[in-house]
């Protein structure tokens, strides 16, 4: 355990560099994915079949296939059609599409959960649908959506470890590289686990903070 501990200290710079990749991958795909998810949720709520059907197929595919398989399709599969993406763009696209799929369902559910009477009341005071959505519906939907969104973002942080399989030097890959070289398996993966735990704890704290803010005027 002594050698394990000093090795952990020695390899910490590498693991932290990996954790930086993990953080950037998570935040990048979280932000773009959330925007994508919102767009897809609106498509699904539009009621226009030409928009609803593609959105449903997209969500169904993302939720119905393993993320690892999606990453392999993008990274190892697309080159057969001449689309050769580097590891990090491949991972970003994969995770963004995944976040987009899951968060669109959360947002759609949250929007649908707002009492339809609110739409009617807004229509009575001559608000357009867009105005109603922005001023009345979204502030309420945000409160419903925050906890499940926080949940899926924490999952995302952990899922980024899958990028190790497509050459991204993120946290888990760094731990794999060091443990393969040194045979310090337990201490290296334990350190990686601790770093993942810290990252998701920061997210969890952020989520709590945002939930408090969102609930400030609710009761």
């Amino acid at each position, binding site marked *: *355990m002594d050698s*394990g501990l000093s090795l952990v200290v020695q390899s910490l710079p590498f693991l932290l560099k990996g954790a930086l990749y993990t953080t950037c991958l998570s935040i990048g795909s979280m932000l773009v994915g959330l925007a994508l998810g919102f767009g897809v949720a609106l498509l699904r709520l539009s009621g226009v079949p030409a928009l609803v059907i593609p959105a449903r197929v997209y969500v169904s595919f993302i939720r119905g296939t393993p993320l690892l398989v999606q990453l392999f399709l993008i990274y*190892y599969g697309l*080159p057969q059609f001449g689309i*050769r993406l*580097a590891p990090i763009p491949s991972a970003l696209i994969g995770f963004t599409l995944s976040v987009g799929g899951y968060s669109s369902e959360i947002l759609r559910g949250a929007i649908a959960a707002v009492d339809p009477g609110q739409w009617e009341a807004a229509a009575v005071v001559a608000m357009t649908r867009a105005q109603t959505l922005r001023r009345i519906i979204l502030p309420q939907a945000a409160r419903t959506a925050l*906890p499940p969104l*926080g949940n899926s973002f924490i999952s995302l942080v952990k899922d980024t470890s899958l990028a190790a*399989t497509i*050459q991204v030097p993120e946290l888990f*890959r760094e731990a*794999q*590289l060091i*443990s*393969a*070289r040194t*045979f310090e*398996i*337990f*201490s290296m993966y*334990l350190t990686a686990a*601790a770093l993942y735990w810290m990252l998701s*704890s920061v997210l*969890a704290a952020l*989520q*709590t903070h945002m*939930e408090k803010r969102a609930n400030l005027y609710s009761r």
Partner: protein
Amino acid sequence: MLLWKRRHFVRDVGLLAGVALAGGGLATPARAEDLLAAIKARGTLLVGLEGTYPPFNYQDEKGELVGFEVDFANALTAQLGVKPDFRPTKWDGILAALESGRIDVVINQVTITPERQKRFDFSQPYTVSGIQIIVRKGDEAKINKPADLAGKPVGVGLGTNYEQWLRQNVPTADVRTYDDDPTKYQDLRAGRVDAVLNDRLVAADFVKKSGGPFVGAGEPFAKQLQGIALRKDATFLAALNAGIDALRASGELEKISVKWFGTDVTK
């Protein structure tokens, strides 16, 4: 999330530290001299191999495990009076599986290196090989010796001696690590790496079977010896070495080698 309190966090961290210490204690290997007796009593030798590494060990069309090392393990266990129980394991976890006692030996072209010898015992070598550079057809004039790898993306297996050799001998190469053979050759084909390093024996077989896109470039270099890896255990090691000696003396080892490689690669 409201249940998440600071004092719980402190308690959980304490718990984690406890688990870490207990893990450290558990890492002590089981009593050494019992292993050979335990294997004989069990009647099977747990053999770790990848099962995806032709022509050493791989599944044939019928889904059966075949290859040079499968034949070798069968012959060797017959010498010990037991049967092999093959446990396909991914390379990056195979030495960890050996260390934790999930398997008794690794017969999977484990190159004998000083780092590995600190951790494990190795039988006498049963194959002699070297490192081969594999490139896309047409690139062999540009890349055919170690110095040509400088500054280029090069694919190697994660935790292999090829990774280690590359990092030590061509420090300017852009080292890309892969979990298995198919993915690194896919990236070689796609042009994400310009060369792959592998065992010369594997490379010869692979280039032949791939039928065109890849070639072995230049001569193999850095002679390497492969042995059976086991947890440190003098009695068991002596039994394995005696078994290999017997296979050499009877000519059986050479026969197996000629069957798979057309030549004797065991000396």
